[in-house]
């Protein structure tokens, strides 16, 4: 599996070195993994303040 990088701002996981949403440099040092499919009905997405479906890291350094 190709290395995933996490956006330092929105925690979005991507294969790119720059976040496609925030244009912020991404980091390969991240922990925790969240897949959000339905942000409008998810309690976890609400707590994490996530509006877009996708894969996210819990913690990015």
């Amino acid at each position, binding site marked *: 599996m190709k290395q995933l990088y996490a956006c330092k701002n929105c925690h979005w996981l991507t294969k790119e070195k720059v976040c496609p949403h925030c244009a912020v440099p991404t980091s390969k040092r991240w*922990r*925790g*993994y*969240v*897949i*959000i*499919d*339905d942000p*409008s*009905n*998810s*309690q*976890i*997405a609400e*707590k*994490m303040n996530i509006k877009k479906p996708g894969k996210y890291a*819990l*913690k990015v*350094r």
Partner: protein
Amino acid sequence: MTDAAMDDKEPTKIFSIKTQVGKEQNTADLLNSRSKRSDLDVASILVTPELRGYIFVEGYDKERLKDVIKTISYARTVLDGDIPVSQIEHFLVPTSAVAKISEGDVVEMVAGPFRGETAKVTHIDDAKEEITVELFESVVPIPITVRGEQVRVVKRKDEDKKEE
């Protein structure tokens, strides 16, 4: 079904799934792709580094979930009952690894080449979540910088003062 009826879904439940240790992320990815192929409605999947061998799945139908995880070899069972979101809230907002460490504390290295050795904390870098320590057993004090997760506090600086 109308859009209004679709938006008015019942509240989600959070189920925990026992998985093979170290395969939590793979299980989450597989479950995500299988749920899209089958009619399993999953709102989110959570993998926390603190809890090895378990993942949390936010969904509606536990029986359907049980059927789907039978096709995933890394997944073992769905645990009985569902978990209130308040119980997993602390996983979602992780605290800094160095938050509970202060300068002067005695720590034990739990990982890395100095595993098992005790040391004194001399400096803390909050931004990088790294700490600088001096090993007790080294003859010459050499500062070593390690990650905050690699140590465990064995004695606090305050405890030392109380004993004196």
